[in-house]
């Protein structure tokens, strides 16, 4: 009896130590890969929501280069500190009106001394009050398990503890609601692939290219 209890305990420990990977492929309706899509896996099993070191809530950076936010979409874990260094010669004024984080960095050059803390999950839309075409997004995830697709439309969440997850995706131009993309996924000892076909809206980014006769603010 004593030996069997010990064996059972070891099996539980071994099961929780198993880790797999989630490979995600996101394509638009026309089959083209969709970059900048955030993939979030929310653990459904109690005790699985442990921050992996690779997704820590440490310092994150959203640059301003050539009057653009770089990267265009930045996923962070709730509670993360994000710095907004300005690498242009011109001053920027970064702001957000999003419910997940309202803030304004008064006109500045270089790197502001204090980072902005994003402690509420949700999508934060960034803008610059000097350059209206500048737009960027910070996706604040409630789960430490997230990734973002690159140019080939693929993303990988690695070392995902075995268990059940609620997986969803988000993209700035997606035509549907984020929750409509959600699906339950079971992760075991190995990699599994999930594919999404994502309808995109026709316009998402403010235009920077010149328009004849336009007399805009800048």
């Amino acid at each position, binding site marked *: 009896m004593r030996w069997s209890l010990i064996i059972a305990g070891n099996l539980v420990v071994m099961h929780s130590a198993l880790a797999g990977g989630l490979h995600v492929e996101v394509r638009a309706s026309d089959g083209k890969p969709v970059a900048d899509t955030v993939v979030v896996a929310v653990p459904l099993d109690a005790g699985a929501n442990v921050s992996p070191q690779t997704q820590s809530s440490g310092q994150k950076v959203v640059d301003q280069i050539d009057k653009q936010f770089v990267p265009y979409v930045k996923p962070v874990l709730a509670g993360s500190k994000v710095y907004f260094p300005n690498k*242009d*010669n*011109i*001053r920027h*004024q970064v*702001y957000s*009106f999003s419910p997940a984080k309202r803030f*304004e960095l*008064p*006109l500045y*050059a270089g790197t502001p001394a204090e980072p902005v803390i994003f402690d509420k999950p949700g999508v934060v839309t960034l*803008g610059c*009050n*000097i350059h*209206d*075409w500048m737009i960027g997004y910070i996706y604040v995830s409630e789960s430490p398990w997230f990734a973002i697709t690159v140019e080939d439309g693929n993303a990988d969440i690695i070392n995902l503890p075995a268990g059940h997850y609620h997986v969803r995706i988000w993209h700035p131009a997606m035509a549907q609601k984020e929750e409509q993309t959600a699906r339950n996924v079971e992760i075991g000892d190995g990699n599994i692939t999930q594919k999404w076909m994502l309808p995109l809206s*026709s*316009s*998402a*980014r*403010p*235009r*920077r*290219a*010149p*328009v*004849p*006769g*336009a*007399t*805009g*603010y*800048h």
Partner: protein
Amino acid sequence: MCFIEYNHGRPVLHRVLLPVLTLMAAPAFSDAVTNAAAEFEYNDNITNGQHSGDVLDDTSLLANMSGGEYWTLTDRIGLTATADLSAVRQNGYSGLDHLAPGLSVALHGKLGLGRDAPWLRLSGNGAWYKYRSDVRDGWHYGLAIAAGKRFGDRLDLHAIYRVDYVEPDQIIKDPFLVSTYHVHSDAFRTHTRGVTLGGVFSATDRLAILADWTHQSGTVTSTINAAGLVFDEEDIVTPDPAFGANHVAYRAEVTTDILTGGISWALDQHASFNAVYTYRYSDGEGDFSYINNIVNLSILYSY
């Protein structure tokens, strides 16, 4: 024998250039501004003629370049100053070929924070137009105040009040023309003022649709074939050799309604291809009126 007086525009240039150079030397945060355009244009009535015998059409190639600085003066106000150069090559009437170096200054103000905040823009420009046909040489000045607001991701509306002046270099006082034909003054000295209402609709990331309506009043220059005509003493007419020996230009008071519509296709973040159609209807005293139909194809670059 032709007597010509020259207007001296240099003091004006000096008054504009000095503050611009002072600003450019100031240790403010600034960014380089570069704009360029290559255009093809068809105008079915370049003479602004009323009667079919006077209406001449032509195509032209245009190139514009401007470069300067943009300063963020405060979190709501910016200033742009550029040096500009435009060149026009007419296909049929080479007398209208011209170069126009100039300066532009614009003060931008934003009434709040965010992309949807209303904005104001006060701008002025001056350029010296050097034509192949010297009689048209002169200074062009413009002042404009514009206001606008974006509504959501797609619609951007604006209103503009603008005044323009053309000050010719030469004032012709030709005794023969005055005594024979009562030709005695400068038809190329004009001024207009007008209000524009319009907007840009972003149909997609790349495609924008633009539309403007302008109501303008002031003076315009119209050119006619004057063979056999005798002008009244009060007429303001000038020989206009750009269109031939018998052509004279005269100045008329008109009101003009201008409708503009077009599309703009973003080639990348800094360049666009544009196709714009403009309809102008000008109506003056008596039964004087004329119409222009203008098609403009352009590639614009901005950085």
